[in-house]
């Protein structure tokens, strides 16, 4: 790492495994939710939270923390699993996912959950919100960085590109995007619904610095978030090539697990595979 700290990739992989267990357990308990896109994005999030994101688990509201904006807010199980594994949420919190009064709302919500920086649910809004956080940090001469997790399907929303244009124009050097490129959206594969093409090239055309990475190779992910964290020439996008449902065989590359919870038997198999 840039700060000289040794990173134990194995430990991060183990954390990602435990997060995956949380994801399938909480969606099973809720009998609803979005396991597919949670499982595709979780390795990127573990690489980030486990290394360079400045976040104090004992004080999640710390003003000068880095921000993590979960723009694809339906992948809330990934967010809650991270917060659980870091000790911000407890087991009861995450197992109450989607139930009345639960701190784990269906889509991530900054008013309900400690450690959540954005109230999502409508796709296409998080990058703009992150840009607002980034511009404020620069006005305050703060070193905090703003990370935004986007879904690839979400980039079909025009507002993403309004924000991409504005981020470079306003020289948002403290803004970082991770695109979870799992190639599946709600109804079907993206190349059936609306293929967007080379997402990285589109960010580049708006003046962003872009790298692609295998979104499930923890060692590569640690390197790329470290690189992105230390870049200061402009906004940075990481296009993480991922597999929807990654880690659970029958969910992998299966559009039907975008927004469907595992049943009892599927949970048993999933937990066996993740053991």
């Amino acid at each position, binding site marked *: 790492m840039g700060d000289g700290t040794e990173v134990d990739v194995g430990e991060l992989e183990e954390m990602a495994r435990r997060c995956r267990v949380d994801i399938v357990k909480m969606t099973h308990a809720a009998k609803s939710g979005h396991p597919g896109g949670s499982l595709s994005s979780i390795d990127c999030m573990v690489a980030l939270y486990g290394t360079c994101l400045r976040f104090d688990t004992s004080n999640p509201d710390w003003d000068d923390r880095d921000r993590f904006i979960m723009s694809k807010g339906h992948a809330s199980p990934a967010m809650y699993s991270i917060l659980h594994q870091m000790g911000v949420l407890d087991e009861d919190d995450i197992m109450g996912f989607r139930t009345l009064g639960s701190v784990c709302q269906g889509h991530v919500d*900054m*008013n309900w959950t400690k450690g959540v920086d954005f109230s999502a649910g409508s796709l296409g*809004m998080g990058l*703009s919100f992150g*840009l*607002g956080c980034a511009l404020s940090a620069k006005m305050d001469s703060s070193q905090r960085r703003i990370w935004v997790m986007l879904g690839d399907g979400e980039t079909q929303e025009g507002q993403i590109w309004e924000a991409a244009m504005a981020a470079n124009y306003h020289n948002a050097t403290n803004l970082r995007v991770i695109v979870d490129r799992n190639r599946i959206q709600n109804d079907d594969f993206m190349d059936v619904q609306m293929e967007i093409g080379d997402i990285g090239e589109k960010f580049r055309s708006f003046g962003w610095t872009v790298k692609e990475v295998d979104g499930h190779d923890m060692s590569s992910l640690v390197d790329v978030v470290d690189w992105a964290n230390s870049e200061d020439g402009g906004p940075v996008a990481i296009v993480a090539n991922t597999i929807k449902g990654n880690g659970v065989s029958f969910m992998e590359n299966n559009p039907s697990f975008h927004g469907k919870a595992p049943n009892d038997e599927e949970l048993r198999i999933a937990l066996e595979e993740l053991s």
Partner: protein
Amino acid sequence: MSAPTSGGASRDGYGKGLLRIAEDPRVVVLEADLGKSTKSCHFRDEYPDRTVSLGIAEQNMMLVAAGMASSGKIPFASTFAIFTERAFEQVRNGIARPGLPVHICGSHGGIHTGTDGSSAQSIEDLAVYRTIPKMTVIHPCDDISAEELTAQLLDLNGPSYMRTARNKVPRMYEDGSNLRIGSGSVLREGGDLAIISCGVMVGVAISAAETLSNEGISCTVVDMHTIKPIDVELIAELSESCGAFVTAEDHSVIGGLGGALAEWLSTNTSTPLEMVGVRDSFGQSGGSSELMDLMGLNEAGICEAARRAISRK
């Protein structure tokens, strides 16, 4: 006929209000290529480092404002009233739901906007934003009140929408007048009928009250600049003392000031209410006064409504 050339336009008051609170370093201004029209340009001239141009991209502007509010800023984001509506879902989900103190100003609202035609004449903005939980909705009548209410937004710990108007109208207030967000301002007192008005219709209501007084009808006139939360204490009081209401607004009669009054009156009293406003139709190009006459948003329209309301007592 054309719009009055003397007096003040509420959009000018917004611009001055921003300058009044500019010393607070939390205040930031966001624009979508219409700063010269909404009058945020004066803030930009003085404080370019705290002004963010987002280009012609209103949806992005609303969420950038939300992100800044979440980081301790107090953003004021303006564009034309109609273009704020393009970002309705952004305002609803990105600003109001988390309760972030973002203050949206939609200028050039209403039929009064005139020659640009129906595409620019937002007649539903007050209704649209009134339906969103946590939103404060304001529509000042002149530049002086707009300046004061804009300045008061600094201390409002939640989201707001303020509609301002393009054209100058006769001033209803003097500098230093006492008005507060959430409290209707009684501009004239009378015992037969209360005319509850907002925006450019306040001055018209005052003229109508004068005409009605010649017929022996004594009217209270209220500038209900805050549409939400509406001043129910004042409405209850006037329901008792006047016993009949007319609302007057440059907005659809569906869901705006008239709608707000109707909701409260129908569930709490049997006091008659007549509404003057746009009758579920779009406008067209034309001079402000010509259009207002065409739509019945004039003194005669208020007087007729007043007579109907009184006959229903």
